[in-house]
């Protein structure tokens, strides 16, 4: 008894798009269901953390140079947190989402992309809300180059995603990385220019700091707020974009060679 094959065939891209949109839906609903005050509650935590950081560090630092200290610190803290969150969450993606691979179209990379999209959206809104608050307090609009800010943000998120794919595979092969990577993120916080500007560094130290795409993105975004904020030559957008492309390519290459391994129990 032969039967026609039912179900309309759709392309791989459409399947992936459907899966990612379903995962984003699930992620958002879960976050909203786990906090009070509904949708607003989701933003209260990161906003609160940022506000506390900003208050403490602006009190310590005082106003410096061309860029408002609150904006200076906000760029550092929000972008670093974005990078850190995407990377760490990807590292834990296999464990956190194991039950989802029960549905055949869901692949590990989809969970990483969906989480990355949700985190990026969340921190993009946090960044906008805090800048608005600062603008209102200063009664002055200070964002000179919005596209540059957006590009820095997207490049950093994509770099973190590529790194996240590598970490996901590595963490699955070597479970001890689950302890090690969060530890390694702490020194990264100190060398990522969250508190300092690269133009204030001595020339001999600069190359040891500027290789890091996180520093690049943070410094470029400060420049986007105020073009008078000076950047050393070592900080450049093409370098950041190259890092992003490299990170994504290597991440995808490693992932595609290991997808089967990730899905084997």
């Amino acid at each position, binding site marked *: 008894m032969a039967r026609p094959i*039912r179900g309309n065939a759709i392309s791989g891209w459409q399947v992936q798009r*459907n899966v990612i*949109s*379903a995962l984003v*839906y699930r992620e958002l*609903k*879960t976050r909203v269901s786990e906090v009070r005050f509904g949708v607003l509650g989701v933003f209260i935590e990161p906003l609160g953390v940022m506000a506390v950081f900003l208050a403490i560090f602006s009190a310590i630092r005082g106003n410096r140079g061309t860029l408002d200290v609150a904006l200076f610190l906000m760029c550092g803290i929000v972008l670093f947190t974005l990078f850190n969150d995407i990377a760490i969450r990807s590292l834990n993606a296999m464990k956190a989402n194991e039950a989802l691979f029960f*549905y*055949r179209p869901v692949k590990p990379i989809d969970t990483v992309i969906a989480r990355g999209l949700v985190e990026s959206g969340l921190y993009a809104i946090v960044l906008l809300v805090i800048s608005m608050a600062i603008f209102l307090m200063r009664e002055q609009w200070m964002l000179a180059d919005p596209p540059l800010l957006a590009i820095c943000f997207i490049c950093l998120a994509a770099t973190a995603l590529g790194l996240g794919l590598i970490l996901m595979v590595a963490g699955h092969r070597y479970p001890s990385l689950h302890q090690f990577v969060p530890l390694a993120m702490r020194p990264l916080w100190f060398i990522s220019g969250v508190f300092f500007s690269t133009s204030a560094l001595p020339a001999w130290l600069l190359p040891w700091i500027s290789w890091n795409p996180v520093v690049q993105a943070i410094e470029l975004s400060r420049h986007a707020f105020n073009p008078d904020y000076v950047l050393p030559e070592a900080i450049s957008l093409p370098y950041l974009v190259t890092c992003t492309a490299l990170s994504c390519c290597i991440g995808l290459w490693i992932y595609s060679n290991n997808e089967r391994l990730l899905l084997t129990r």
Partner: protein
Amino acid sequence: MIKVSNLSKSYLHKGKRVSVFQNLDFELNSGESVALLGRNGAGKSTLLRILGGIDQADSGTIEADCSMSWPVGLTGGFQGSLSGRENTTFVSKIYAGHDPELIEEKVRRVEEFAELGVHFDRPFKTYSSGMRSRVTFGLSMAFDFDVYLIDEVTSAGDERFRKRSKEVLEQRHEIADFIMVDHNLWGLKFHCDRALLLHNGSLIEFDDLEEGIATHKKLLENPTQHELVAA
């Protein structure tokens, strides 16, 4: 048609390879439903998971020209803090795509089948096992697959749910095939034409379901009677 050749699966347990089954070969034609028999731990669910594509075999190939469901009746993939409706929407988005009306229709079908009333909007973790079965079974049947992998679906749930799930399975049986695991042998007799018996890592095919069940029962009584299988 599903063609399985040379399929082997093992797990790594404390550094040692433990084999589940080796070199399975079988073919399932479209239009026939099979019962998967074997004692607890024989590897039935593992085989279903591999057929469903959610676990990978060590070696061997599966060729299939039909769509296969996820193992019906398992609650994996449901988020406890989300409601039945939200979990259903999530799965519908994966399988039904971008069309909001289609997704809504699927969710409505599940809601009608589950008959949970207000509980459909309460967190899934508050559900009893019978309520969970109603939602997961309703969800699986809301989608059209060529082959349904059914793992012990009717064991939980009350009389009404069993009766209605039986009706739904009957209807679906007219247009789709089943690969069933069920320790309720009567249910198997009702839906299946053939039997596959997993024993000691190998697989025996029975063209006659009754014969398969008889051998299965003998092996349950006396698991070391390997000559029954060799015959």
